[in-house]
């Protein structure tokens, strides 16, 4: 018998409900569809956190778009210890040269990963490169990069759910919530 675990018990406050997220994604989709009508739009999502957002967003954009996925190592990750440098774990599967690229992010906080990705993608000569994020946490910003589409500006709290994880858990929550501090301070 499989024991069920209620991940939501680790959540303090629910910051964004499933309905709020759905409404915002639909709104972003409408804006993006209007801005990119008649253009060659490619949505580039960054695994793994952006996966639910990307899946929902692309279905709200009624344009003949393409999608592509990337994954980059993050600081402290097991894959990165040897090199000490950010590494592309999964690169784009097709050229984005002369394409209008929209980079889809789940959250922007320090801007370090985004800064790296923007430089990397610009090197592939897209016709344009814009950024869309569901969540923006400006209080944490180290590298300021203009973001074209922002779903929600959120306070300086550690959030999980709707793709966002802590220790690879909680990504499957249908809402965005604040992780209880005792969860990440246990055994600290």
């Amino acid at each position, binding site marked *: 018998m499989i024991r069920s675990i209620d991940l939501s018990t680790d959540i303090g406050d629910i910051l964004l409900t499933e309905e709020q997220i759905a409404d915002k994604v639909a709104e972003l989709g409408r804006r993006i569809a209007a801005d990119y009508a008649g253009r060659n739009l490619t949505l580039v999502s960054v695994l793994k956190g952006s996966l639910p957002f990307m899946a929902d967003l692309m279905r709200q954009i009624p344009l003949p778009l393409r999608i592509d996925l990337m994954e980059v190592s993050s600081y*402290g*990750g097991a894959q990165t210890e040897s090199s000490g440098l*950010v590494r592309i774990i999964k690169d784009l599967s097709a050229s984005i040269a002369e394409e209008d690229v929209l980079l889809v992010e789940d959250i922007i906080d*320090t801007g*370090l990963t985004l*800064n790296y990705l923007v430089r990397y993608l610009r090197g592939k000569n897209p016709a344009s490169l814009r950024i869309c994020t569901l969540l923006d946490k400006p209080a*944490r910003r180290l590298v300021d990069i203009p973001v074209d589409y922002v779903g929600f500006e959120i306070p300086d709290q550690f959030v999980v759910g709707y793709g966002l994880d802590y220790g690879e858990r909680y990504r499957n929550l249908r809402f965005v919530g604040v992780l209880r501090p005792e969860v990440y301070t246990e055994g*600290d």
Partner: protein
Amino acid sequence: MTEPAASDRAASVGSAPSFAHASEAELARILDFYEVRWAYEPDTFPIGWNLDGDVVESFSPDFYLPDLDLYVELTTLKQKLVRKKNRKLRRLRELYPDVHIKLFYARDFRMLLLKFGRLALSDELTGTTGQATPPRVAVDEAADDPTIAVILAARDADAESATIGSSAPAARSPETAPVAAAALPSGGAAPALRGRRRGRRRRRPAG
């Protein structure tokens, strides 16, 4: 003092400065990881002068990120102990409004480590326990330069306060030093003879 060239100040990957605090070394590793160039304490900004026009108080941000034209000051002391640093930062912003600087508090740094799954390092890297090495300025240089001596005294005072949690005065800080800091008008520019655009920069030794 000549102003260091931008390329000279921008050395990061490959160079190994002697960091004053383990948290600074960790932040340098994070910046390296994301290929953000940095320089460690490349500039010193005078922020206080005595009536003779001599610099009596300065501020040396921990990092300069040349590609972002941003200074970063990292303080991992507890929030109640950062008042002095906040005051210095306010002063810097008044005197050098075109200088972009971001202050990372202990909580910010802790959250950064949490984001990268390295929260366990937090206790090692914050507060005075993260004091990896003594302040980098050589003693002989400090002896030659009263400004740096004042900074060292202030750092020592910060560290001692954090360690013993006492209100007893430790080393002399700029506030208690027997020189009158010139009171410049709020928001006024630094006197022309006392600094360039970013004040009289002082190149720190690499090691």
